[in-house]
C-alpha cells in the first residue's frame, strides 16, 4: 500500500516570497509578477487590469489615438514614393505605402501639439486650489487623484510625444517625489513658446540651446534665492511646514498639519542623519477603510493585516519574544521525489506517530527557546494550530515576505528558515503585541509596538472610502519624499510661484546680455516660467494676468524674491509669512528635466510611423 500522508504535498504550495522592495506612490502600479503572492486581500485590492483610460469627466482632450489634435492629420503624408526618370516608382522600405512620415516643421508642430495637450490636462491640477481628476479603468475601477504622475500613469497615453511627457513626470516622481504636475506644466509652456519661435524661422536647435542656457541661469538663480534652514531631531517645525505645503494641494489638505507631522516623524525615525540617507522602504504605509482621516496615526512598529491563527489565543502579549519563521508547521518534505512504502499496519502507525512527533517537536522547540509569539510566512494545518493553542503559544500565519522582513528589522530578530536553527538570540523583541479590531467590522489587525529597534515604522491611514485612502497614501508618499529631500539637502525656496517669478525676472534680465538668436529663446524661457504662477492664479480663481503682473512688479520694486501668488487668500503675498516652502532640489530638478525633454522633442524633425493602427 502506498500511503502519503501530509508528507506528500505538491511542491507548489511552497510559494516563493515575492516582495517588491519599493514604496510605490500608488498601489495600482503593482507590477504583475509571475509568482503569486498569497494574500487574498491583496488580490482584491489590486485587480490585474491596470490600464485606465482618461474618463470624460477630466475635461481634457483625448490623447488616445493619432495624437495631438487635428493638425496632425493634415500634415500626414504617405511615405513618399520615389520615382525615377522613367516614371516608375520604386519601393525602398518595407510596406512603404503603409508608413506615414512627418517631416520638418510639420513634425515639430504635431509633436508640440501633443505635448501641449498633455500639459493642458494637468494644468488645472496645479496648486492648493487645483482640481482632481477621476480616472476610470476599463473594468470600472475608479481613481481620484491630483498627483500628476499618477494621472499620467493611468491615462494610457498612446502618442509617442505624450509618452515622453508621462516619463518626464515619472522621472520627477522617482527622483524627487513631488512636483510632478509642475514639471509637465512647465514643459508644456516651453513647448508653447517654442512654437512661436519656430514660426519665426528660428532653428529648433538654437531654441533648444537657448533654453539650456536659460535653464542654467535659472538653476543658479534658485541657488541664490534659496535659504538654508536648520532643523534637528528636536526642532522639526520647519520640516513640518514644508511638508504641509506639499499636502496643501491634496484632497487631505484639511488635515495637512497632522499628516505632515506624521510624515516628518516617520522619516526622522528611519533617517540616518549622519549619512543623510533615508530608506523609505522602512516606512510602511497601511490603510484600512473606515474611521475618519483624523484617526490616521503613526505607529512605531509594524502593523500587519492579520490576526492570531486561533480565535482563543491571547489578544495582547507584553514583552513578546517573537520567533520569525519561514518554514511551515508541518512535517518536512524533501525536494527529491519520494515515496514511503507502507506494507504493514505497524509501519503505518510508526509513520503516523512520527508525523505527530514532528508537530510536537516543532512546538516544543519554539517553547524551549522562550518564544512567546510565532510569526510564520506559511500556513499551518489544524493539527499544528490546535497544538500551539494547547501549549499556549500564540501564532500568526501567512505573513508576507516584505512584512516579515520589516518585523525582523524592527524587532531585531533573525528570520529562521528551519526549526533546528532556532536559538534564543534569534528571537525578536517587542514591548507589546496586540490585536485591534475596528468598529463593528470583524477586521482585526496586529500591532507590534515598542520594538527593540524603532527604525521601522508604519503609517496607518483611516478614511471613509478606498479612493480616499489611496489618494491619502499618494499624498503621504509625496510628503515623505519632501521630508527625505530636506534631510538630504536642507535648502528651500519659497513656493506659491514666487521662485518661478523670480527666476523669470532673472532670466529675462540675463537674456539681453546674450548675443545671437539664443536671446529670443532665453526670453521665451522666461515667459514660460510665468506659466506656473499663472496657472496657480487661474486655478485659485484670481485674474491670472493682473495677479501675475502685480506680483512681478512687487518683486522687482521691493527686490523681494519671496512674493508669490496668494492662493489661499491670506492677505499677503510674502511667502515667508505664509510659510509656503518647497525644496530647492525639487525645483531645480523640475527646470532641468523640463528643459531636457523639450530639447528632445524639438530635436525631432522626422516621424516615421506605421500608419493605420
Amino acid at each position: 500500500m502506498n500511503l502519503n500522508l501530509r508528507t506528500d504535498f505538491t511542491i507548489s504550495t511552497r510559494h516563493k516570497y515575492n516582495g517588491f522592495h519599493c514604496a510605490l506612490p500608488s498601489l495600482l502600479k503593482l507590477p504583475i509578477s509571475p509568482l503569486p503572492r498569497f494574500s487574498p486581500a491583496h488580490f482584491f485590492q489590486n485587480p490585474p487590469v491596470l490600464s485606465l483610460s482618461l474618463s470624460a469627466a477630466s475635461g481634457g482632450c483625448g490623447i488616445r489615438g493619432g495624437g495631438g489634435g487635428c493638425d496632425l492629420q493634415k500634415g500626414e503624408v504617405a511615405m513618399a514614393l520615389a520615382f525615377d526618370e522613367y516614371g516608375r516608382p520604386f519601393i525602398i522600405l518595407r510596406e512603404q505605402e503603409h508608413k506615414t512620415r512627418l517631416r520638418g516643421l510639420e513634425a515639430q508642430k504635431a509633436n508640440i501639439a501633443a505635448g501641449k495637450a498633455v500639459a493642458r490636462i494637468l494644468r488645472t491640477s496645479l496648486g492648493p486650489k487645483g482640481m482632481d481628476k477621476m480616472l476610470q479603468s476599463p473594468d470600472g475601477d475608479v481613481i481620484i487623484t491630483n498627483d500628476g504622475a499618477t494621472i499620467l500613469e493611468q491615462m494610457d497615453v498612446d502618442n509617442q510625444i505624450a509618452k515622453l511627457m508621462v516619463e518626464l513626470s515619472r522621472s520627477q516622481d522617482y527622483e524627487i517625489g513631488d512636483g510632478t504636475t509642475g514639471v509637465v506644466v512647465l514643459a508644456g509652456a516651453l513647448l508653447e513658446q517654442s512654437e512661436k519661435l519656430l514660426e519665426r524661422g528660428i532653428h529648433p536647435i538654437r531654441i533648444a540651446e537657448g533654453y539650456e542656457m536659460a535653464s542654467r541661469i535659472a538653476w543658479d538663480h534658485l541657488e541664490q534665492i534659496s535659504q538654508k534652514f536648520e532643523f534637528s531631531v528636536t526642532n522639526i517645525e520647519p520640516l513640518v511646514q514644508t511638508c504641509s505645503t506639499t499636502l496643501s494641494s491634496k484632497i487631505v489638505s484639511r488635515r495637512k498639519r497632522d499628516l505632515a507631522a506624521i510624515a516628518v516623524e516617520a522619516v526622522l525615525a528611519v533617517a540616518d542623519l549622519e549619512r543623510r540617507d533615508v530608506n523609505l522602504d522602512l516606512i510602511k504605509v497601511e490603510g484600512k477603510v473606515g474611521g475618519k482621516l483624523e484617526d490616521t496615526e503613526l505607529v512605531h512598529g509594524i502593523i500587519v493585516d492579520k490576526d492570531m491563527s486561533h480565535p482563543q489565543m491571547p489578544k495582547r502579549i507584553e514583552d513578546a519574544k517573537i520567533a520569525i519563521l519561514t518554514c511551515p508547521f508541518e512535517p518536512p518534505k524533501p525536494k527529491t521525489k519520494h515515496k514511503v512504502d507502507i506494507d504493514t499496519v505497524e509501519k503505518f502507525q510508526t509513520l503516523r506517530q512520527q508525523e505527530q512527533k514532528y508537530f510536537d517537536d516543532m512546538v516544543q522547540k519554539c517553547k524551549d527557546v522562550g518564544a512567546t509569539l510565532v510569526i510564520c510566512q506559511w500556513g499551518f494545518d489544524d493539527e499544528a494550530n490546535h497544538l500551539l493553542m494547547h501549549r499556549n503559544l500564540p501564532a500568526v500565519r501567512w505573513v508576507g515576505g516584505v512584512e516579515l522582513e520589516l518585523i525582523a528589522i524592527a524587532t531585531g530578530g533573525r528570520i529562521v528558515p528551519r526549526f533546528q536553527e532556532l536559538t534564543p538570540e534569534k528571537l525578536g523583541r517587542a514591548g507589546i503585541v496586540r490585536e485591534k479590531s475596528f468598529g463593528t467590522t470583524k477586521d482585526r489587525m496586529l500591532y507590534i509596538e515598542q520594538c527593540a529597534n524603532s527604525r521601522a515604522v508604519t503609517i496607518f491611514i483611516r478614511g471613509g472610502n478606498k479612493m480616499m485612502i489611496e489618494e491619502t497614501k499618494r499624498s503621504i508618499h509625496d510628503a515623505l519624499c519632501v521630508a527625505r529631500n530636506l534631510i538630504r539637502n536642507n535648502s528651500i525656496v519659497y513656493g506659491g510661484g514666487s521662485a518661478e517669478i523670480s527666476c523669470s525676472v532673472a532670466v529675462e534680465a540675463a537674456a539681453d546680455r546674450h548675443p545671437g538668436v539664443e536671446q529670443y529663446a532665453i526670453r521665451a524661457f522666461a515667459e514660460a516660467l510665468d506659466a506656473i504662477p499663472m496657472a496657480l492664479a487661474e486655478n485659485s480663481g484670481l485674474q491670472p494676468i493682473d495677479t501675475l503682473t502685480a506680483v512681478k512688479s512687487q518683486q522687482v520694486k521691493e527686490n523681494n524674491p519671496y512674493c508669490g501668488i496668494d492662493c489661499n487668500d491670506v492677505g499677503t503675498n510674502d511667502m515667508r509669512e505664509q510659510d509656503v516652502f518647497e525644496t530647492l532640489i525639487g525645483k531645480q530638478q523640475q527646470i532641468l528635466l523640463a528643459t531636457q525633454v523639450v530639447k528632445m522633442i524639438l530635436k525631432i524633425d522626422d516621424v516615421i510611423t506605421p500608419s493605420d493602427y
Partner: protein
Amino acid sequence: MAAMLQPQIILLKEGTDTSQGKAQVVSNINACMAVADVVRTTLGPRGMDKLIHDDKGSTTISNDGATIMKLLDIVHPAAKILVDIAKSQDAEVGDGTTTVVLLAGAFLKEAKPFIEDGVHPQNLIRSYRTACHLAINKIKELAVSIEGKSMEEKKKLLAKCASTTLSSKLIGGEKEFFASMVVDAVIAVSNDDRLSLIGIKKVPGGNMRDSFLVNGVAFKKTFSYAGFEQQPKKFQNPKILLLNIELELKSEKENAEVRLSDPAQYQSIVDAEWNIIYDKLDKCVQSGAKIVLSRLAIGDLGTQYFADRDIFCAGRVAEEDLQRVAAATGGAVQTSVLGSCELFEEKQVGNERFNIFSGCPSGHTATIVLRGGADQFIEEAERSLHDAIMIVRRAVKNSTVVPGGGAIDMEISRYLRQHARTIAGKSQLFINAYAKALEIIPRQLCDNAGFDATDVLNKLRQKHATGEGLNYGVDINTGGIADSFANFVWEPSVVKINAINAATEAACLILSVDETVKNPKSESAQGEAAASAMGGRGRGGAAFHGRGGRGMRRR
C-alpha cells in the same frame, strides 16, 4: 508578322523579375539617393533626430545613422548596401555612420549624369577607386599625430575628439562633461580589447549631470528574498566570492525518486537534503568572503544564512556583470580565487538601489551610470556614449587626428581637383565629380544649420585654394568659416579613412550592377510586402500585380 509569331522562349520561372541595362543602374542610384536623403538631416551639431515607430509600438528617437538605417527596414536590394556600410562603419569605428551613407549617396549622385550620358560604369569605377586611393593618402599625410604627448595632454586631446562626436547628439549640451567621463572610462580599461568591460547602466530619472562614472563595477540590486535587508550594505576591502551555482534547497536530480520502506528513515532523507545546502553555504562562509555573488539564484534560505553571518549576497547577477566583477576585482568565477576591492556599497540611485564596487585592484573596468528624463532619452544617450567610447578607443590606438567641420573634406576635394587637371582623358571628369561629391559634408552641415550653403562653400573653397587655410571648416555658430583645428573640432583620421573607403566601395558596387534577377519563390516567403517592391522596379514591370499595382494607383 513572322517576327510576332516567333515562339516565346521562357527561360526563367514565371513571375521572375529581371531588369537590366542602364535604366537599372539609374534606378539603383535613385533608390540609394532616396535613402541617403532620409539620414541627411541628422549630420552635424545642428542635425535633427528621427522618431521611428515600429509596428510593435516601440519608439526610438535617434541621431545615429546606423541605428536609423537599421530601423528603416529597407527592402530595396541596392539600397540595402547602404545599410550594410553604415553597420560596418559602426562596427569598425563606431562613429561617422551618417557620413558614410551621405558620401555614398553623393558619389552615386555625381555618377548619375555620366551614366545617363552613356559612360561605361567600369570607367567610373576605375576613376573612383583611384580618387579614393589618392584621398586616403592625402588624409594620412594631413593627419596630425598626438603620439608622444604626456598622459595629461593626451587626455585633453582625446576629450576633444569625444566632444566632437557628442556635439551632434542629444547630450551635446553637456559634451565636456561626458567627454571627460568617456576618456576616463576608456583609459581605465586601457589596452583591453573587450568593449564589454565598459558597462553602461541606465537609470531613468534625474538629469544628465547626475550621471557618474564608477571606477569598477555597478549593477542594479538583484531580486532579493526576505532577510536581505538585514545584511550589511557596506564593506571596506571585502573579499568577493563569485559563483555560478544555485544556493537553494532543491532536489539534486530531476526525475530521481527515493523509495523508503522504513518510515523511520524519513528524517534522514530530509536531513541529507538540508546538509547538502548547508554544506555549500558553509563552504562559502569558510572561504572568508564577505560578498557572495552568483549568476544563479540564491534562495531565501541562503539569504537568511548569510544575513546571520553578516555577509552580503546577490543572486541572479547578469552574466556580463559577473564577468566584469571578476575582471575588476581579480577574482574568478567558481574557484578559490577571491576578488577584492576597496569599497563596496549599496547606494540609492534614482528609484533603484545599486551595488557599487569601487577602487578595484586590477581596475580594468569602468561603469558609466547614465541618468536622464525619459527612457528614449537615456537610450539615445547610451548610443551617443557608445559612439564616443569607440572614437576614443580608436584615437588611443591610431593616434592621428584630422580637423572636422568639413575642413578635411574640403581639403581633399581641393587636392583632387588639382590632381584631376593633370590627367588627360575622361578620368579627369570623374575625379572632378568625386571631388565635388566630397563637398556634401560641409554643404550638409550648413544646410542643417540653416545657413546659405553656397555662400559658405565658396568662402571655404577660396580659403583652401590659397593654400594656407587647409584647416578651415564650417563655423556652426556664426554661419561663417573658422579654423576647425584651432577650435578643437577634431576627428580621429581613421573615421574619415574608413568612411571614404566604405562609401567608395559601396558606390562602385552599386554602379557595377546592371541586372537584377529576382526569384519569385523567395518573394512569397518574404511575404507580400516584398512583392510590392517588384511591381515598381525596373523593366520587369510586366509583373504588375498585388500591392505594387495599388501603390501606383494611389499616386
